């Protein structure tokens, strides 16, 4: 690359910088920026790094709580789980790179989020991957799905962090823009958390890890644009991951962190060296000076602009105490990692970049990192929203063969067994996995204590499209419900907010509404948001995806023996339903699969009821009364019952259930609801659970009994009965048939 002589309006526009933003840059510098500085501003002020469109809304999310040790603003959130331990967790998206190059895009997404966790002193112990693809009947979407899953497996397995959960949904809306979100959780002594702050004038700045190449230049900027024809040509902006080097970095950094040589540490993720240097200085209230001539390079002839903007993977930046350099270097040497001192902490608040003796950039660090543009973009409820929400069920015929409907739903990739995906991930490493993928939430034990952690990720793009406020509430409510069904108290959340272009008023409306819903729900469940990620510009050829907020929820089990799974445990158990059935069809998987409609209003979440239902469920589990607990979600009550019968590792169990009421059968069976949990309990425990529910004002109905070899559901005017082995066979092969 050659350095252009002049900063022209064209060049500025190519960097995604508006004329107003350029004016601010000139004010900050008191002069025109040079080419390197222009590049630095363009990545730091990109949507991806600066959150310029989302910031005003994210402020409304609750971030404080008694157990929160570190909220948003660092590499990841930190939550106290007692006994001197803390969990460190965060979720990020790698949507754009994964569409362009599925395998490496997903792999480097895994690598990036793992670095965010061990940077803070925590050993990464779990990954979760919420994924969204186009229909798997489409060749391109199948290619993307296989590549993404292979990339997650390839990186996660090799680096040695188990992937214990996730979710997978397919819909036409993601065909041109898949979503790859990755959550990582680590564990650390709570008094050994490391922050990404520079400090101590004169302290050395150390670069460690992979050499810098030309890969990933402008990756953050790419993630701040929509896709058009020829986006695949952007392949060079996707980086290539090296899980082995990452593993070395994990071990070396954690070994170094047992001592006290480190002042601050940050990984080089989006915007690489640029972001890590100016953010560390800005947070520490210092300046920083680095010399690019000392940066290990993979290629010759790289100009400062390229070195500063490279997103080569597996690189870290450290500030260490002066005089401790030798001991630091000895540890990196042990792990065969390249480490060099590339600069010093200064006291002038400037990010000063030199190339040998030549100064190539000089920018106030704080202005660059913290004082980027903030937009109050216009919002507008789309004119078509009313039409979208309109649904007249009376015009939809009730299918006669309800058993076929149930089988069709179980075969739908959104409901079918996800084993073909998670069997490719090591989900058992570290000997913590008490409940593996396949139940409502994964449960890990916390070694050295009696505690456990439950992890779930949820988000329903269709609900959010139909009603963004309810969709935001649902994502939090369902994630909390899943964690509760596993026997855990919801503790805190991270999120990944995947939306279209913020430059469209209707997208900003969706975003603002969804965030409002999440904020209300997070306050109800007392689960603060500890951080997360916003991914805008998820559009291809002008068509945005369904707004898809994903919530990652962590719950705490005080006693790991309370870990509960979703499948029925033994014949004779009584089936109880906590919560209220409404029988609405809006936004349901049934409506989509059987009638080809994505319309109506999604089920409304009554947050007070939801909280009460969850409390009763948890109380009953802790009292040792519950054999199985499963929330009613995609596919409604019939699908939830089928899942209770046949998703366990042992032999499938039948059930006989009676549903009274005058609701039309398809709505009764397949209509989706919030705040409903199915419990399997011993007959002698049923009355006690019912009493608990009554005390909290929560409806609790006896639906039937675990028995026989069929799932039989009787209503006033229908009778559905299918052998559970048939349900199981359909459900187990639904996804593998599509993935081929």
């Amino acid at each position, binding site marked *: 690359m050659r350095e252009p002589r002049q900063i022209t309006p064209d060049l500025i526009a190519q960097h995604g910088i508006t004329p107003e933003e350029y004016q601010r840059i000139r004010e900050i510098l008191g002069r025109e920026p040079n080419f390197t500085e222009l590049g630095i501003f363009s990545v730091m002020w990109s949507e991806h790094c600066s959150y310029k469109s989302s910031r005003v809304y994210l402020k409304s999310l609750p971030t404080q709580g008694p157990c929160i040790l570190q909220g948003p603003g660092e590499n990841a959130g930190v939550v106290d789980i007692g006994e001197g331990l803390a969990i460190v967790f965060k979720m990020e998206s790698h949507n754009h790179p994964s569409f362009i190059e599925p395998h490496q895009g997903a792999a480097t997404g895994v690598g990036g989020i793992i670095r965010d966790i061990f940077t803070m002193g925590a050993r990464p112990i779990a990954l979760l991957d919420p994924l969204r693809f186009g229909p798997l009947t489409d060749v391109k979407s199948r290619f993307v799905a296989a590549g993404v899953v292979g990339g997650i497996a390839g990186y996660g397995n090799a680096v040695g962090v188990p992937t214990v959960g996730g979710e997978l949904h397919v819909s036409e809306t993601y065909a041109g823009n898949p979503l790859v979100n990755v959550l990582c959780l680590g564990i650390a002594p709570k008094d050994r958390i490391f922050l990404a702050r520079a400090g101590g004038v004169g302290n050395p700045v150390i670069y460690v890890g992979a050499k810098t190449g030309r890969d990933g230049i402008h990756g953050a900027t790419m993630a701040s644009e929509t896709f058009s024809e020829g986006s695949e040509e952007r392949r060079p902006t996707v980086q290539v991951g090296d*899980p082995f080097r990452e593993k070395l970095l994990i071990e070396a950094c954690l070994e170094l962190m047992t001592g006290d040589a480190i002042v601050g540490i940050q990984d080089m993720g989006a915007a690489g060296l640029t972001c890590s240097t100016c953010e560390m200085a800005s947070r520490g209230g210092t300046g920083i000076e680095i010399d690019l001539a000392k940066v290990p390079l993979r290629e010759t002839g790289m100009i400062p602009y390229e070195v500063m903007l490279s997103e080569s993977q597996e690189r870290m930046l450290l500030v260490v105490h002066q005089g401790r350099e030798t001991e630091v270097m000895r540890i990196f040497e*042990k792990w065969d990692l390249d480490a060099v001192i590339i600069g010093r902490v200064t006291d002038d608040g400037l990010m000063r970049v030199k190339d040998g003796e030549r100064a190539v950039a000089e920018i106030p660090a704080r202005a660059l990192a913290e004082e980027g543009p903030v937009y109050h973009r216009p919002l507008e409820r789309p004119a078509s929203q009313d039409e979208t929400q309109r649904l007249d069920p009376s015009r939809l015929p009730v299918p006669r063969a309800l058993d076929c409907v149930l089988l069709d739903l179980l075969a739908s990739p959104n409901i079918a067994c996800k084993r073909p995906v998670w069997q490719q991930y*090591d989900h058992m490493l570290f000997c913590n996995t008490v409940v593996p993928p396949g139940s409502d939430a994964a449960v890990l034990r916390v070694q050295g204590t009696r505690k456990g952690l439950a992890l779930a990720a949820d988000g329903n793009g269709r609900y959010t499209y139909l009603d963004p406020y309810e969709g935001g509430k649902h994502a939090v409510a369902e994630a909390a419900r899943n964690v509760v069904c596993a026997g855990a108290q919801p503790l805190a959340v991270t999120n990944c907010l995947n939306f279209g272009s913020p430059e469209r008023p209707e997208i900003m409306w969706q975003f603002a509404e969804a965030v409002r819903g999440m904020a209300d729900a997070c306050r109800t469940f007392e689960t603060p948001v500890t951080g997360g990620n916003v991914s805008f510009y998820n559009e291809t050829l002008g068509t945005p995806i369904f707004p898809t907020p994903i919530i990652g929820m962590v719950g705490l089990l005080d006693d790991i023996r309370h870990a509960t799974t979703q499948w029925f445990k033994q014949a004779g158990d009584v089936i109880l339903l906590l919560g209220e059935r409404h029988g609405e069809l809006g936004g349901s998987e049934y409506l989509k699969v059987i009638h080809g409609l994505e319309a109506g209003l999604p089920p409304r979440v009554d947050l007070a009821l939801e909280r009460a239902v969850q409390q009763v469920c948890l109380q009953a589990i802790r009292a040792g009364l519950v054999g199985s607990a499963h929330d009613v979600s995609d596919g409604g009550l019939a699908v939830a019952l089928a899942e209770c019968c046949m998703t366990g590792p042992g032999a499938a169990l039948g059930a006989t259930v009676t549903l009274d009421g005058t609701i039309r059968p398809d709505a009764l069976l397949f209509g989706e609801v919030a705040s409903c949990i199915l419990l399997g309990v011993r007959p002698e425990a049923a009355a006690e659970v019912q009493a608990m529910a009554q005390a909290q004002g929560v409806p609790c109905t006896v639906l039937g009994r675990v028995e026989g070899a069929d799932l039989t559901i009787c209503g006033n005017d229908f009778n559905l009965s299918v052998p559970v082995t048939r349900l199981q066979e359909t459900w187990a092969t639904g996804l593998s048939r599509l993935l081929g």
Partner: protein
Amino acid sequence: MKCGILLFPGTWSHQDFAHVCQDVLGCDWGYVWHKETSLRGSDCLILPGGFAHGDYLRCGAIARFSPIMDAVVRFAREGGPVMGSCNGFQILCEAGLLPGALLRNTSLQYRCGWVHIRTESLETPFTRALTPAQVLKIPISHGEGRYHAAPETLARLKANDQIVFRYATPDGRITDQANPNGALENIAGICNEGRNVLGLMPHPERAAEAILGSEDGLGLFRGMLDAIAARPA
């Protein structure tokens, strides 16, 4: 030090082995770093799972050149008990301590999950505590675990009773369906002619506590510890 757990760059099951040694069995253990040349008085050796040196080349092909391997080979040749699981098995094959090779799974995909293996030989220090044809419920986690050997090697393995574990159904039948990776004759683990070196693809350290779903892997550890106790110092 009783149990030496080898640590290569890229190894990741070492902590789990250490956990079982320390918290489940309460036995003495220590890591042996691959750049060392001494086994630091280990009475037995474990080569854990992972991706030693990244395994970008053939699995284990670089690890066999790690400085510690001379000492490992010497220890094995002198009859010291050595167990390689997963990547450890691959390394033992590459180092020539076990015959055959581990190839890419026939699915061409990584596989992690529970399998069952049938004990085919009790004549190793590790399996002495098991019962004939005992079926163990135990996890696997690998992309390249398909055991392969030339016909004459296979014949020798059989003649010498060196096949120690085969993938099986829960009731002990050897079927194609029970074979998770396409391994030759469902072979999941073998020993050397001296019977002191065991390699297996499954992870006994992940099947050592009831809360994780199985304690069937413990027998291998117990056998190994018994063998150490019985060996002349």
